[in-house]
């Protein structure tokens, strides 16, 4: 009974941090004490045993997440027969798509591939060394873009504000050294230092994109920017035949990287506190860092243009048709400068209450990821089972981002010679024959294979 106030306070605290949406790393594994992956979620969380990841397949993570779009928002059963049609099919009601959309619709796909990883105990200290690559991509599309595609201008005309359209991609390699140690019987702290080598960073963003359509004119007003940083990046410029200005030829980009385009660093910080024998609180800040991209590997462009179309003009002295629609996305090169990009930092706050001598635990985890295009928050409730020494499993339910029809599951098998881990935060309740989730706005899959080492002194 004494735990009730703690749990209530934890729940309120977690809810306060949970504002929007989901995903990032495998939250379902956060409370799995035998899974090596848990130290990547919180460096103060240590797996029961040390490990050596099997190269290339030791730690693979794939994630897709969106705050609004699922496959069944893009493809629909054919209204007149078998098969599928896209949302752009004229037979599909616009409301079917638009009702599910947010003002800004974010999609991201992340891939993490562990090249090498080892974790080992020296006394009570736990050390990790990891080499991995990351690819993070993100797209932000305004609702107006979909509305225009489905509804158009109407017969009376309409204006659309399509600002904040954005596409970005960041790829980097990391070498990380982690360390954790119990400070007392109740408190464990951990940290990880990462040296980052930036491989690619690109971002195209339109801060302004205003579309006005009426029976006598169409007007588009656009302002955008392009940033690219890749080692040995070579871009040809074209000359505008009308005004003689130069612009970046997007069809003629040559990339032959021979090394990093920038360097950076990051830290992970974690803490766990055993409030009582049954209740443990924890928190972590993951990937708090940056990559600095050198000016000589960077190209920056700006686009700003106004396009007006009124059709033919008879009788007016002044020409009203101005601009060239193609020029709206022509980026004029500006002086390259070094750029600094921050990583997608994640904040975890969690608590777990265990029963039956820790055989079963119930956890509540808030995870908030601060991405460059958006902030995703997810709240995950999990039940964690540790029935026997070499097997553990977790079932989770993430509240915010899964249309209330998915749950997560993770399994960790650790016989004496191998440790096999597989898990997802969004179990596929409906998938296509090609194994693509149908109605989930998020999907992730984590897989790991490692050789267990000796147990540590917990």
């Amino acid at each position, binding site marked *: 009974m004494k735990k009730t106030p703690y749990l209530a306070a934890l729940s309120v605290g977690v809810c306060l941090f949970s504002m929007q949406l989901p995903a990032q790393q495998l939250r379902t594994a956060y409370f799995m004490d035998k899974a090596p992956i848990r130290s990547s979620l919180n460096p103060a969380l240590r797996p029961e045993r040390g490990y050596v990841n099997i190269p290339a397949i030791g730690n693979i993570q794939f994630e897709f997440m969106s705050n609004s779009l699922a496959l069944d928002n893009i493809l629909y059963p054919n209204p007149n027969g078998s*098969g599928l049609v896209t949302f752009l099919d004229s037979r599909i009601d616009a409301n079917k798509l638009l009702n599910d959309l947010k003002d800004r619709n974010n999609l991201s796909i992340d891939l993490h591939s562990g090249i090498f990883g080892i974790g080992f105990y020296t006394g009570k200290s736990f050390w990790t060394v990891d080499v991995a690559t990351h690819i993070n991509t993100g797209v932000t599309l305004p609702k107006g873009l979909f509305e225009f595609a489905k509804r158009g201008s109407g017969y009376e005309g309409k204006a659309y504000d399509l600002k904040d359209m954005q596409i970005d991609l960041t790829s980097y390699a990391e070498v990380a050294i982690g360390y954790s140690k119990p400070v007392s019987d109740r408190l464990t702290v951990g940290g990880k230092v990462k040296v980052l080598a930036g491989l690619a960073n690109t971002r195209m963003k339109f801060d302004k994109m205003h579309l006005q359509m009426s029976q006598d004119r169409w007007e588009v007003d656009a302002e955008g920017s392009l940033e690219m940083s890749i080692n040995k990046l070579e871009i040809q410029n074209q000359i505008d035949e009308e005004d003689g200005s130069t612009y970046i030829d997007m069809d003629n980009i040559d990339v032959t990287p021979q090394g990093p385009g920038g360097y950076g660093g990051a830290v992970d910080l974690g803490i766990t506190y055993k409030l009582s024998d049954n209740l443990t609180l924890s928190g972590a800040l993951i990937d708090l860092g940056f990559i600095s991209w050198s000016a000589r590997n960077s190209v920056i462009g700006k686009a700003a243009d106004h396009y007006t179309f009124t059709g033919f003009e008879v009788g007016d002295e002044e020409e009203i048709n101005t601009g060239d629609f193609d020029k709206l996305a022509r980026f004029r090169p500006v002086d390259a400068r070094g750029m600094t990009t921050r990583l997608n930092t994640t904040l975890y706050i969690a608590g777990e209450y265990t029963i039956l001598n820790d055989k079963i635990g119930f956890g509540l985890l808030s995870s908030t990821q601060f991405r460059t295009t958006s902030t995703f928050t997810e709240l995950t409730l999990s039940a964690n089972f540790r029935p026997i020494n070499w097997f553990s499993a977790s079932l989770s339910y993430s509240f915010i981002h899964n249309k209330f029809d998915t749950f997560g599951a993770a399994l960790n098998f650790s016989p004496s010679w191998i440790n096999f881990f597989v898990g997802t935060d969004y179990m596929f309740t409906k998938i296509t024959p090609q194994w693509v989730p149908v109605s989930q706005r998020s999907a992730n899959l984590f897989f790991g294979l490692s050789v267990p080492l000796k147990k540590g002194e917990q």
Partner: protein
Amino acid sequence: MKQTLLYLSILLLGWLLPGCVKNEYDLSKVDTDNIAVGGELVMPLGKVRIDLTSLLPGISSVKVDLPGTFPTLSFDIDAGFDTGILDQLDESTPIYITAAVTNCISEPLLATITFSEDENREAAPVVLFDKAQIKSADQGTTTLTTSLSMEEFRRLAESCMINFDFFTIDKQPKNDVEIMANATLQFVFSVQKSGGIKL
């Protein structure tokens, strides 16, 4: 025991997954034949602006004495605008016209506005407005709307004369009617298309 549990887990996974498969969402059967962008669209085709000042150089107004009939007034115009954009549209697409008539006549009248290829009207003129009511100059701008078939619009685009036939509304005006020299007529041609633009 360990291996048995491992095998059972894999078997359970293999049993559950097929149950999740929605065959109606087979991504190899996506029909993209009916893709259209834009829903309902209004698209400008062009504008024709006519200033009577330019058509009647040196003349401040055309006075029509009462009583009597109103003669047809015909003016040369330099039309001949490009209709190439029509090739992108379905031939059955109607062309919508909005006309704004400003400072045209001193008394309200009915007007028939036609476009013809020559003054003699040997070829049937394109009737834009048939006995549409035009406000007097002091009553403000008159806005009229109508539509043409694509074939009519092409003929209009080749016209070189604009013709006005005026009629009294219900009774003979008390005063003589003047056609004002500073009259302006603006025709806005547009397309309203439902079903979007097919890709």
